[in-house]
């Protein structure tokens, strides 16, 4: 295994994942630079969430390699990847329903990168800080299953942040938010990046992707069809076609 250039935090080479006959992710290669926000877009069913699951370890690839921070990780268990510093949110949110908001986030602080903070009191401190950051502090004593949609999105984000990841995978954290809330989350994500976290963000809100991403990766039918600066990617005829159909393009 050769040493990777320090500039690239995550590198995927030929990642492929099949579900029975369907190839959800087909020979996808890309790299995510350290400190970068990479936007991941594509029509429904393009394989975006599958790609995030391959990176977080929820799914294993059928072929291809993943290098994170100079280490091969594509066969590692999810908890080991979390310890290395990969945190994710789930599009279909996965709160710990019976626990309070604070306890939910404390789990992220107790485990997470490097196995997390062993001391429960200090972990709770860190969790509180994340709740302040995401605006959930007023709800910290509520049960997670009593939260409304937007607050659940915030909880997903707070849980992942409490892990203190190096790489944060955000799977549609803005879906269902109103424009004001979207702006808040965009500002929050920028702030997180300023703290030194690299971010992969899946989003359907194109305006948000444009303003957030340093570069954009476009998937269509499981294949990478474009990668680059947002301005040029959104002018790419293949991308326009994928989104709007051939006739319009």
């Amino acid at each position: 295994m050769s040493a990777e250039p320090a500039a690239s935090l995550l590198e995927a080479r030929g990642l492929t994942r099949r579900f029975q006959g369907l190839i959800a992710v087909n020979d996808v290669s890309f790299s995510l630079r350290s400190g970068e926000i990479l936007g991941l877009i594509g029509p429904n069913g393009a394989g975006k969430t599958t790609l995030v699951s391959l990176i977080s370890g929820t799914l294993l690839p059928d072929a291809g390699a993943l290098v994170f921070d100079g280490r091969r990780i594509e066969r590692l268990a999810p908890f080991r990847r979390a310890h290395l510093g990969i945190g994710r949110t789930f599009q279909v949110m996965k709160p710990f329903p019976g626990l309070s908001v604070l306890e939910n986030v404390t789990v992220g602080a107790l485990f997470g990168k490097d196995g997390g903070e062993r001391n429960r009191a200090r972990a709770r401190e860190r969790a509180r800080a994340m709740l302040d950051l995401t605006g959930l502090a007023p709800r910290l004593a509520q049960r997670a299953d009593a939260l409304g949609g937007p607050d659940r999105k915030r909880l997903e984000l707070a849980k992942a942040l409490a892990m203190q990841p190096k790489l944060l995978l955000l799977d549609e954290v803005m879906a269902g938010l109103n424009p004001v809330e979207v702006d808040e989350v965009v500002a929050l994500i920028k702030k997180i990046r300023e703290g030194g976290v690299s971010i992969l963000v899946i989003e359907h809100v194109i305006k948000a992707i444009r303003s957030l991403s340093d570069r954009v990766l476009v998937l269509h039918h499981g294949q990478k069809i474009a990668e680059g600066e947002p301005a040029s990617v959104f002018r790419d005829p293949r991308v326009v076609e994928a989104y709007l159909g051939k006739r319009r393009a």
Partner: protein
Amino acid sequence: MSSRWGVPLLGAALLGAVPWIGDETMMQFGIYLLLVAALAQAWNILGGFTGYASFGNSTFYGLGVYGTAIAMAQFDLPFWVGLVLGAILAMLCALLIGLPILRLRGPYFAIATLGLNAALSALVANLDIAGRNIGLILPLTRHDVLFYEGLLALLLAATLAVAWISSSRFGMGLIAIREDEDAAAVMGVDTTLYKIAALVLSSLFSALAGGIYAYYVTFIDPASAFDPKLNVQMVIMAVFGGPGTVLGPVVGAFILYSIYQALASSISTAAALFYGVVIILAVIFMPKGLVDLGWGLRRMGPRYLLETVRQYRL
């Protein structure tokens, strides 16, 4: 801290005094009560915290029973050696079996553990060293006070272990597994290791309870050692009291077993029926157990009952 533990400590002291203030009947009642309470607490470690409803804890109990019985009846070894042997046997079984069956979730896990219990029962019934299906007879002793205090000590140890779990990082990991195993794994919980650790700890306390009880009853056979009904009792008592809480399973065992005994001595034919009704009502109105009920009633009064019924869509 002191006020929180005052009542349980007083209760433990009172329980410890029973052999000196109670009569023979009370002792017999007490020994079985402490046995099921310790078993319910042991079940709680896995079932209550990780949400894996085990019907195989009677297997670990049975291995504890047979470890002690084989050591004492076949090899004339002292009681404590048998106790340790039984515990080792049960923990080895938990370790070996845990890896494959803890991959199963929900009802599939429950069924697999039930199968394990049946398999071990059949295995033991065909082993000469275990007395085949006739069973084994242990040396007779009349030290009921020791059995009583031994089971009480075991119950206290199991409860202390659960108290530690519920305030530790380990326990938070177990609870995260119960609430959402995939999310727990992605957040850094080594789910396989945690589940196996919980199963092994649970098997340890179950086996010790079995070992003590075997010496007390002196006659054992496969049907009584690997009795699925005993496992059902553990589940009901832990769930009635409050799974995943420190004192819930103990309170649940004390209340349910007392009700059952009171009914059995007055209206024996209807006892089982009433017992069943109590359990059905409990599951409908307090699916999270007595401990949660007490907390909820204090916080929002009778509205708690309606809230839980609505929340669990019953």
